[in-house]
């Protein structure tokens, strides 16, 4: 039986896939605070979608609650603004029902890892084909400035006036530990880097988790400056690129070398080490991904950005469809009449 969904998909008019970013802007006025990092993310998403050659009607953006979660209203695509923490679960149902869609989740650090933490880890382990953009501003903003699961230790906030005593999650490690097949980190201030990461996430088959450092100008301004501002960034961040050695520093004068399993900073100018001694990034190396993610809160090491891991394995929705097809092929009679009868039935004439 063809379902009505198939009718809609099969009978729809052919649409152009030549888009400009404008085609993805909804008529709704964007209402984030002036200077909010979310503006940049919205612009980069609209830009990369325009280039993907996927019909616009095939996109769905799903969100929860928080500043980030207003995102779907600003996209001229299908979308659901859900309830707090549940975006990934809503998106999972949508993707399983409609594997033909490109389903994106827009969420924040509180929405995704506190109230929604359970959905995050389980969607990651199932490898549901979702692109999860987690705007990390290390604070609850829409509720006006409370501690979030990524707020740094010691930080005073509205709900931690004497300093935060909750150790923060490292989102990349959490995603890797949960089995996410694609894990990356980028930040609001570098449009080119973000576009590159988003494009890779968009094309990933399976669960893609992208942590985006997003500056909150009101409640946590400058939280990421050390790693993202032009004057300090090159000394305190390292960009991961597949197949390339990990080099950083204002003059590209430092690198990361593995000492056993421990990453250490080495100088490239003191004559002891050369580029050949450095750690070379490999997105397919699942052990390395953990080591790199674990550099995150180590103050002796630069903060890593880029794709920690990108591996392939069948997605949940593919496995669902495959299992249905296999079960059908092994069942001689798949009529509902037969199902209704069950194994023990009798006839009265």
């Amino acid at each position, binding site marked *: 039986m063809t379902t009505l969904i198939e009718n809609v998909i099969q009978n729809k008019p052919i649409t152009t896939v030549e888009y400009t970013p404008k085609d993805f802007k*909804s008529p709704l006025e964007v209402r984030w605070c002036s200077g909010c990092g979310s503006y940049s993310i919205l612009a980069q998403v609209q830009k990369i979608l325009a280039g993907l050659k996927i019909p616009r009607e095939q996109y769905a953006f799903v969100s929860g609650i928080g500043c980030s979660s207003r995102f779907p209203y600003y996209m001229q695509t*299908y*979308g659901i603004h859900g309830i707090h923490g549940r975006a990934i679960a809503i998106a*999972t149902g949508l993707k399983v*029902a409609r594997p033909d869609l490109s389903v994106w989740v827009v969420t924040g650090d509180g929405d995704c890892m506190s109230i929604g933490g359970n959905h995050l880890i389980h969607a990651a382990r199932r490898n549901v084909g979702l692109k999860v953009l987690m705007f990390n501003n290390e604070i609850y903003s829409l509720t006006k400035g409370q501690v979030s699961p990524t707020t740094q230790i010691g930080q005073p906030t509205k709900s931690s006036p004497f300093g935060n005593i909750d150790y923060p999650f490292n989102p990349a490690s959490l995603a890797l530990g949960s089995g996410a097949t694609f894990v990356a980190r980028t930040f609001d201030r570098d449009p080119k880097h973000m576009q590159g990461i988003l494009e890779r996430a968009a094309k990933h088959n399976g669960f893609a988790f992208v942590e985006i450092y997003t500056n909150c100008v009101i409640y946590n301004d400058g939280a990421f400056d050390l790693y993202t501002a032009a004057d300090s960034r090159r000394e305190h961040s390292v960009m991961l690129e597949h197949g390339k050695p990990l080099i950083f520093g204002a003059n590209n004068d430092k690198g990361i070398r593995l000492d056993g399993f421990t990453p250490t900073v080495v100088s490239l100018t003191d004559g002891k080490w050369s580029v050949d001694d450095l750690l070379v990034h490999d997105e397919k190396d699942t052990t390395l991904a953990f080591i790199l993610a674990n550099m995150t809160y180590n103050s002796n090491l630069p903060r890593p950005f880029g794709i920690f891991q990108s591996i392939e394995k069948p997605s949940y929705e593919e496995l669902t469809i495959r299992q249905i097809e296999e079960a059908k092929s092994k069942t001689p009679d798949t009529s509902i009449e037969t199902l209704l009868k069950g194994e023990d039935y009798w006839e009265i004439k």
Partner: protein
Amino acid sequence: MERKIIELEDVTIRFAGDSGDGMQLTGSRFSDTSAFFGTDVSTFPDYPSEIRAPEGTLYGVSAYQIHFGSKGVYTPGDQIDVLVAMNPASLKVNLPFLRKGGILIVNTANFTEKNLKLAKYETNPLEDDTLKDYQVFKINLNELVSELLKDSGLTPKQIERTKNIFALGLAYWLFDLPLRPTEEWINHKFGKRPQIAQANLKVLRAGYEFGETNELFAIRYKVTPKKFEPGIYRNITGNEAVALGLVVAANKAKLPLFLGSYPITPASEILHFISSYKPYGVRHLQAEDEIGGITSAIGAAYGGALAATSTSGPGLSLKVEALGLAVILELPLVVIDVQRAGPSTGMPTKMEQADLFLAMFGRHGEAPLPILAASTPTDCFDMTLEAAKIAIKYMTPVILLTDGYLGQSSEEWKIPDLNTIPDIPVQFYTNPDYLPYKRDPITLARYWAIPGSPGLEHRIGGLEKEDITGIVSQDPLNHQRMVELRAEKIKRIQQDIPDAELLGDENADLLIIGWGSTYGSIKAAFDRLIEKGYKLAYVHLKYLNPFPRNLGSIIEKFDNIFVPENNLGQLAFILQGTFLKPVIRYHKIQGRIFLSSEIENKILEILNAKGGKK
């Protein structure tokens, strides 16, 4: 040997033993056989929430009750006519339900000192006068099966496990029921292990022969079969009926079915059945939690699936916020609550009807939604179809209330002809003039447009939306309008639900109003009292929100309204609030359905107090 044969209209038999004694299996085989033989059947599995409670304990007793016959079989039976007890604990727990003069078949093998102590018997009931009011047959089943199977090659443990099959064979003999359906079942079930199959077949026949040749049994019973309409029949539980109802609803709506669910007693079987329907194209997600169950279903509904979630009370509590989302999104969603005894974990395997308030009022803000209730196991099929139909037509979440008793009890079911079930019309909106909150003028349902339709890209969400356009709006007047529209939409469902049917006499002294699984007990009591010449009226409600259109006019005619419920009076409260008429409440909150005699006595008490007469 010549035996007296007594003909009966209906009989209730209960198999009781330890959790590991196979009582559920024995009972379900007996029930299938009696239905196959041509009687009405109503069954009730009664088992502890522990999987394998310590052997021999009172709380580890597992039982399966079958009421079968040609007349008055609306419930699994008030009193037991025949009790099969496999150990002292099961005797202790179940003897109070055996009618005086009833038949008791006891496996004496397990009446050891240790087991008697575990069952808190100070002296052996087989030896004192505990059983003097019953016809007792003491049989050492363990000894009989060990002797029978001594050359079978089975281990002593395997041999011991066949004792329930012996009891089953004896029960078939006692009621002159055929062995063939069980023989076929054994061959099918143990087809790949012929040794086990042979042993079970041998024991089954030996049980039957035991009755035939043993002079202990002087009487045999014959239950008159019923005249059934021609058709194909099977036994079915409420949970399986719900699962099949979902599949048929999706088929009739030409939509794919998606179930998002989390395991919970006594609703898990719905998830089990649905997950076994993969060959029929059904998709499901065993979610990480109850909230993931319902929210994934909401996502699937947005994608154009017939989406459902199944749960029980504690799970419904967790789904409450998402239900509010489904109300404001105005997407179709079927929520099945197989109610169990609460609050909190309560008595997970026992039934109750105490989630009506939660279904009706358990959301923040003004969030009305339709509530349906199934009245019998087979009605679970029909009401699931109804729930899906209303959900789709009115673009709303619907809660279907069943309960642990309906979910796990079974009765015979005439399998419907698929061609006679009407289609559920669905029309996805595809014209680019789409406005998300523009409504059908008759139903007030908004139109359903699904991702993949070019030019209809739209966003819905939990924030209040502007009427028609669906743009986010905080406008005060718009909010009131939207609240009123959503409420009015639910009210208009009245135009699609059947009028309440009044049984009995419009001018009766008493109107009984029931809902859900109380149907069987009320109907049995009602029929008996009518037969005795009492003037009574009875309305059984399947639609609890909105109520049927004619309910007010029925209620208006009666001064005495009696509402028995397995809660402290939740429907009574809603009826009083809605129709401003006092009602007489009657409750039983014991994890068990009403006995029909309890209802009957209460009615008589009310009639006597009111000076009513025959």
